[in-house]
């Protein structure tokens, strides 16, 4: 494997990790918001 190919793989892995982290944080926020909404709906 050439250094260019190794560099490409590293860049791809890094960008995929960043996107995955952002999506996981968004999922946590969404689940939290859904929980609050469900509690609110159950109380009304």
């Amino acid at each position, binding site marked *: 494997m050439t250094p260019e190919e190794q560099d490409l793989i590293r860049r791809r892995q890094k960008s995929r990790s960043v996107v995955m982290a952002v999506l996981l944080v968004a999922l946590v926020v969404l689940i939290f918001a*859904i929980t609050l909404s469900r509690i609110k709906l159950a109380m009304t």
Partner: protein
Amino acid sequence: MTVAVPLLPPADWRDFLALTKPRVMTLVVFTGLCGMLAAPVGIDPVIGFTAILCIALGAGAAGALNQWYEADIDALMRRTQGRPLPAGRMDRQSALHFGVGLAAFSVILMGLAVNLAAAAILTVSILFYVLVYTVWLKRRTPQNIVIGGAAGAFPPLIGWAAATGDVALLPLLLFSLVFLWTPPHFWALALFVKTDYANAGVPMLPVVAGERVTRTQIGLYTIPMAIVAIAPWPLGLTGWIYGAVSVAMTAVFALLALMVATRTQAADDSMKVEKQLFKFSILYLFVMFGALVVDRWVLA
């Protein structure tokens, strides 16, 4: 004997996004949102957002599984050969895992956060698109997009079910509108990309039955589509805003369809009218669903 398989670098995240067919998703999300907003009961904004997100993810999953299954024919068509799989930017297994994972996630989230009715219809829509349209019909019959069109017609039904928990006559008419709109929309496209489909061996109507039959079928399918499009108004399900818009827009659609149906292709033809019908058909659906929501919200 061992076969050397070239190792691919991990696919870029943009390729996973491309796998979900974002442009198709726009119409799916819009019709789903309009189905939800046209419902007689309100929905909590967070739950509503989650429902639309699940519709988008479900459509994206179906698109990914479609591209996983059709990688071979996508490679043969100019329109699709730049997609991640035929272009060699992603391996098939990653696409399969991504599609199945996204489908399962969207259905489970819909079931847990919104309601089971919406989750059930979402499941049916994904399975219908992948198994009935992609796997069963697309390579076998020129009626592929007629029956397969049902897959794209589910979002307004899902949106409505997300808000109400059940299904009524109006969302069924919206389902029928998208279902009957699909043949003229796709056959207008198929008329001017006929060579592409023929090269890939996809039995689209212009390839199998010829251009004359396709033009006639476009005209014939427009008749029930027009009836279903206007029906909610005389049935008292919508007000005059939707009535006026649906009559005007359907008249233009029918006129273009009539022009396509009665035209004979000349040698060196640029297919201007067919392209006009295809473009207008997209605008048509956006305006019709938009008018429905405006009607509901203004006249409510």
